[in-house]
């Protein structure tokens, strides 16, 4: 009978060990809903970590806000006036990252084109429905050709040779903030976590030996189109035409502006990137989206990205071989056309 009692006790103990130890919390930060999952530390430490991450992200959001008075709007005023500005180390780092990513993307990712984004009305929480900007205004800005390579960054001194340059870090600030959030978690001794900022995320470690499982939302219907398991330390970022847009006369105008045409990029519904750091993944998702179904592979390669999935305007899925090995489709009731390239 003693043996029976022992057997039951063991079963109950193993039952207790099966309970998930994931602390999950949502905070409003970066103007979006940030979902933080932390594995393997007690709830008090996890809650403290969530507050620290949230504060860090909010500080970045305020410092780099594109249209509310911020350190960035000050920098842009000075650049427009032809002045030279002294940057702090963090500011210098973010601007330098933007210059590098823009160069790698052959300026498809162009944080210097803030004036175009503003012209389209996306420097607001919600762009009201209404007419798109006049073609003449768009052409003027495209011809002004604002590029990150026209910024001059000597040590901490920033200036530009082109007064049309207006920096908008919207294309990689979320990634930067997620990276900073992950650094903050690591400083607090947390090695297993996900920071998901409004659908774009970086996952580190795992949950007790099991990888984090990520779903990728379908760009045209409710639910998930594919899933993947993260390995060690990876970011998963998607740029989609469904995220921000306005309508005019039955036509939808989304927020991802092609700097070559000055208009919303055509041909892509969504572009998903897996890469280690979130800043690069964020910028690459934008650049690959703009590059479109014919040029995406080249752009990804130039930016050092191996795992890419692009869903084009017809719903065909283009992806790298490396990506095809990582994802599992979760849609089984309809055929999916895929094109896999090396």
């Amino acid at each position, binding site marked *: *009978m003693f*043996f*029976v009692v022992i*057997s*039951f006790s063991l*079963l109950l103990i193993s*039952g207790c060990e*099966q309970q*998930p130890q*994931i602390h*999950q919390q*949502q905070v*409003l930060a970066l*103007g*979006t*809903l940030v*979902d933080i*999952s932390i594995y393997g530390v007690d709830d008090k430490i996890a809650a403290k970590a969530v507050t620290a991450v949230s504060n860090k992200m909010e500080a970045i959001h305020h410092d780099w806000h594109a249209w509310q008075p911020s350190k960035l709007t000050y920098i842009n005023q000075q650049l427009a006036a032809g002045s030279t500005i002294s940057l702090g180390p963090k500011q210098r780092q973010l601007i330098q990252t933007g210059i590098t990513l823009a160069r790698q993307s052959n300026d498809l990712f162009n944080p210097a084109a803030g004036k175009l984004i503003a012209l389209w009305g996306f420097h607001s*929480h*919600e*762009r*009201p*429905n209404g007419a798109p900007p006049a073609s003449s205004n768009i052409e003027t800005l495209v011809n002004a050709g604002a590029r990150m390579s026209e910024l001059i960054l000597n040590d901490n001194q920033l200036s530009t040779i082109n007064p049309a340059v207006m920096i908008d870090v919207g294309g990689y600030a979320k990634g930067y903030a997620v990276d900073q959030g992950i650094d903050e978690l690591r400083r607090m001794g947390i090695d297993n976590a*996900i920071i*998901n900022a409004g*659908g*774009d*995320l970086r*996952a580190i470690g795992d*949950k007790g030996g099991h990888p*984090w*499982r*990520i*779903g*990728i*939302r379908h760009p045209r219907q*409710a639910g*998930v189109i594919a*899933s993947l398991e993260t390995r060690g330390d990876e970011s*998963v*970022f*998607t740029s*989609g035409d*469904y*995220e*921000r*847009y*306005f309508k005019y006369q039955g036509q939808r105008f989304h927020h991802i502006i092609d700097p070559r045409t000055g208009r919303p990029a055509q041909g892509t519904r969504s572009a*998903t990137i897996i890469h280690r750091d979130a800043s690069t993944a964020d910028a690459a998702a934008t650049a690959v989206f703009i590059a479109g179904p014919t040029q995406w592979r080249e752009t990804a390669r130039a930016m050092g990205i191996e795992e890419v999935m692009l869903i084009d305007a017809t719903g065909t899925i283009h992806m790298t071989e490396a990506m095809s090995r990582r994802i599992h489709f979760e849609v089984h009731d309809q055929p999916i056309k895929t094109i896999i390239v090396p």
Partner: protein
Amino acid sequence: MTRADKVVIVLAVLLLPFLYIEFWGNRSQGEVVLIRSTNSEDTTLPLDQDKQLTIEGALGTSIIDIKDRQVRFIDSPCQGKQCVMAGWLNKDGQLAACLPNGVTVQIMGRDQRFDAVNF
């Protein structure tokens, strides 16, 4: 085989259904809906009682519908209507948010399939 051995075997077999339900059973069905608004107190409602309710947010009124163990935004005073387009939520952890209005709706518990959703 002693009598005690037999007892253990019988008890182990009897335990199986319990263990199966506990660890492999379908836990994707949510039990409650948590509705948060920047302008009012959090509201928690059972998912199995059909109800339509109005929530005051930063811009105006969001209308939420709970029906057949599912929940959705019917309307919200935002431009993009992402919250309405999110459609029915019916699994643990699923969330729809009207950020302009500061209203979120979530089925509480963990989604058994994914730790996070990318979009």
